[in-house]
């Protein structure tokens, strides 16, 4: 399931809803992205007052659903969830939640890692940071492309190796 929303989310409640009623689930991997206070500014590290996330309504949901479908195809997931916020967020606030539930931990952990890596380079979001002197758009980083690319030639683990 995917959700794009302005409001905050409760990780505990999301986790409970994700696993409710499915006793085949043996593990859940979660990633929660937060707004970091210290960022790289024009003159080195500096604190930001806030970050505003802009997105492309319609395409965002479409791309997140496609990424989730890709993860479902690669790993035997019982359930998965992506929640991504937009709007103005202050340091310490939650931005994104990725959760993957599976019978065994390997699929849950790998799929969760895959989803956050792909989301960064595929989902149409942009970040405007409010720095000390100015607001500036965050540049895409080559490291994020590299993180996403490492999954492109990785095949899902065979089913038997799930049993770790």
């Amino acid at each position: 399931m995917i959700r794009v929303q302005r409001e905050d989310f409760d990780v505990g409640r999301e986790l409970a809803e994700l696993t409710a009623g499915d006793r085949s689930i043996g593990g859940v991997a979660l990633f929660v992205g937060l707004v970091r206070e210290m960022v790289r500014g024009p003159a080195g590290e500096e604190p930001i007052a806030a970050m505003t996330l802009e997105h492309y309504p319609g395409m965002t949901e479409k791309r997140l659903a496609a990424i989730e479908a890709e993860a479902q195809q690669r790993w035997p997931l019982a359930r998965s969830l992506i929640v991504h916020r937009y709007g103005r967020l202050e340091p310490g606030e939650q931005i994104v939640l990725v959760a993957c539930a599976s019978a065994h931990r390997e699929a849950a952990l790998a799929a969760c890692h895959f989803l956050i890596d792909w989301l960064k380079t595929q989902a149409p979001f942009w970040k405007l940071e409010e720095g000390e002197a100015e607001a500036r758009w965050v540049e895409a980083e080559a490291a994020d492309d590299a993180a996403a690319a490492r999954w492109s030639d990785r095949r899902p683990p065979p089913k038997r190796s799930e049993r770790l």
Partner: protein
Amino acid sequence: MKLLYFAWVRARIGTGSEELSPPTSVADVAGLIAWLKGRSAGHAAALADPARLRVAVNQDYVGFDHPVRPGDEVAIFPPVTGG
């Protein structure tokens, strides 16, 4: 044709969307960007460096050689930075 702009592309152009009818000579994304540059100083500044731009046609990422047609939704924006 519906044009959408995001992030600093939107800020430089001064609007997030506009409804335009490019001439029939505009056949693909590259041609569309070249035509848009002539619309205003803001368009020219936003679209000056195509290497810094990404494009989606009807909400799918496409290359600059992708065709554009009347009725398409074409979005122009910087590389994405979600997560």
